[in-house]
C-alpha cells in the first residue's frame, strides 16, 4: 500500500495551527496575569505569530501538494518557509537594530518564495473553468510573482540600508536618492499588489460560482488518446476530460490547457 506523507500533511498543519493559536492565547493570559514579564511575553507572541504565518503558508502548500498541483514547487515552499521561520525567530531573539536590515535582506527571499508558493498553490486548486478564467489565473500568478520580485529587489538593493550599503558602495548622493527609491518601490508594489489581489478575488469568486462542468465542453477539445491504466495496467483508448478505466473504473481526468 502506498501511503505518501503528503496525505497527512494538511491535517498535521491544521492541528499545528490550532495548537499555536492555543499557545498564543496562553501567552496572552500570561501577559495579563504577569505584567512584569511583558517584554519577554511580547517576544514570545511575535515568535508564535511567525509560526502561525508559516503554518498557514505550509498548509496552503500541503493542500496543493495533496491535489497534485506543482508538487516540487509546493515542497520547496514548505521547506524554504521553514528556513525563513528559523531566521525570523533568530532575528527576534537577537533583536539587534544595527544589523536589522541584514536580516531583512537575507530573510525576505525565502519568505517571499514560501508565500508565493502558497498563493500559486491556492490559485491552482480549482479545476479549470472557462478559457478567460484560465488566462486570468495565469495573469494573476504572474502579478504575484512580479510583486514578490519587487519586494525582494526593493529590500535587497535599498540604497541606504541594503546590499549596496553593505558592500561599501555608499555615498550621500545615494542617500539623497533614497526618498525617491522608496516612493517608487512602494507605489509600484502597491499598484501591482492591488491588481494581483483583485485578480485572485475574481479567480476564486468565479471558481465558487461557475460550475466546472458547465463550461468544460466549450473549452476542452475532446480528443482520443491512448493510456495504460496506472492501477490495473490495461492499455486502452480514452477521451480527454473525465474518463474511467474500462477494467478497474479508476477515474482519470486528462485535459489540454
Amino acid at each position, binding site marked *: 500500500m502506498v501511503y505518501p506523507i503528503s496525505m497527512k500533511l*494538511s491535517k498535521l498543519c*491544521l492541528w499545528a495551527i490550532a495548537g499555536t493559536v492555543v499557545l498564543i492565547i496562553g501567552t496572552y493570559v500570561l501577559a495579563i496575569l504577569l505584567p512584569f514579564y511583558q517584554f519577554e511575553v511580547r517576544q514570545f507572541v511575535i515568535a508564535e505569530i511567525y509560526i502561525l504565518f508559516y503554518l498557514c503558508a505550509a*498548509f496552503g502548500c500541503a493542500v496543493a501538494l495533496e*491535489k497534485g498541483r506543482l508538487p516540487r514547487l509546493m515542497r520547496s515552499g514548505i521547506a524554504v518557509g521553514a528556513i525563513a521561520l528559523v531566521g525570523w525567530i533568530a532575528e527576534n531573539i537577537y533583536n539587534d537594530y544595527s544589523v536589522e536590515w541584514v536580516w531583512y535582506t537575507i530573510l525576505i527571499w525565502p519568505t517571499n518564495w514560501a508565500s508565493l508558493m502558497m498563493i500559486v498553490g491556492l490559485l491552482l486548486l480549482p479545476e479549470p473553468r472557462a478559457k478567460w478564467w484560465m488566462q486570468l489565473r495565469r495573469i494573476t500568478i504572474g502579478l504575484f510573482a512580479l510583486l514578490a520580485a519587487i519586494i525582494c529587489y526593493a529590500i535587497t538593493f535599498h540604497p541606504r540600508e541594503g546590499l549596496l550599503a553593505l558592500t561599501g558602495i555608499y555615498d550621500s548622493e545615494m542617500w539623497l536618492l533614497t526618498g525617491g527609491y522608496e516612493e517608487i518601490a512602494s507605489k509600484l508594489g502597491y499598484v501591482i499588489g492591488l491588481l494581483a489581489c483583485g485578480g485572485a478575488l475574481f479567480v476564486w*469568486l468565479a471558481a465558487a460560482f461557475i460550475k466546472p462542468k458547465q463550461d468544460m465542453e466549450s473549452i476542452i477539445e475532446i480528443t482520443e488518446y491512448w493510456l495504460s491504466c*496506472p492501477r490495473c495496467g490495461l492499455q486502452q483508448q480514452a477521451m480527454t476530460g473525465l474518463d474511467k478505466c474500462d477494467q478497474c473504473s479508476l477515474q482519470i481526468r486528462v485535459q489540454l490547457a
Partner: protein
Amino acid sequence: MSAQPSSLKGSFFKKVIIAFVVLVCITILLLIALTLELNDDWMEKLTAVSAMLTLCFGVFVSAGAVIRRKHIASLMWLSCVLAVVGTFFAFILIWGDHYYDAEETVGRFTITSFALSIALAHSGIFSIVSTHTRLLFFTKLATMVCVWLCGTVIIVMFWYEDLFWSMGGIFWTILYIASFSTLASIVGTIIVPIAMVSHANKEYIVNESISSRVKILLECPKCAKRQELSSGNVRCSDCKASIFIEIEEPRCECGYLLYQLQGNNCPECGRLVRESEKWEPTSVGIDLETAKPDVE
C-alpha cells in the same frame, strides 16, 4: 427579487455578482489613481464611496449564496439590510460636510451596521461549510466566535470610547483580546475554506490502492507522443503542450474505497453507492488482496 423572502432568483443573484465585480474593478482603478497622485478631494470621496459600495455588495454576494441554499435566510436578509444602512451612513459621512456636529454619532452607526452585517454574512457563509472532522468543526466554530468577538469589541470601543481610555489596565486587556480575535478571524477565514477540500476534512485517512502521484503512461492528446507523466499540471516532453492530469478513485462520502465493491451499499456506513461510481465486476486478473481498502 422573489416575493418570498427565503428565495432568490438566479438571474438577480448573477446581476448582484456582476455588480460586485464591476465595483471591485472601479475601486481598484480609483485606488491606483490615488496611489499615482492623480487625486483631488473629489477623487478621494469617490474612492471612499466606491469602497463602501464594494463592501456592501460583498455582503450581498455572501448573504445571497447562503439564501440560495435556503439556509438562515431571515438572518441573511437582515445582514443585507444592515449593509445598506451602513452604506447610507457612510455616504452621509463622506459627502455631508454640513452634518459635522453629528459626525461622531453617524460614524458610530456606520461602524455598528457594517460590523454586524459582515459578522452575520461571515457566519452565514461558514454555516454552509460542511465539516467531517471535529478539528475542522471546532476551527470553524472558533473562527465564527472570533469574528463576533472582534465585531463586538469594535462596536463597544466606538460607542464607549471615553470610558475605555479611563479604564487603564483593562483597556489593554480588551485591546489584546481585540487584536487576538482579529488575527484569529483572518487566519480562520483563510484556512477553513481551504481545509474543506483537503484531507483535513476527512474523518478517516483511507489508504489508496495507488499513489495519488503515480506516473501514468499515456499518449499526449495533442502530438500522440507516448510518455510517462505525473498527475497535476505537466508538459508534454515533445510538443510542450500543457496537460492537466488528475486521478481519482471512486469513494463513498465516508471515504470508503469503492474499488471492487460488489453491491449497492457502502459496507462502512451503509450509504447507497451512486450508479456512476459503482465498480463494474467485468475485470479479470486483479489481485483482490492488494485492492482491499484499509482504514486508519
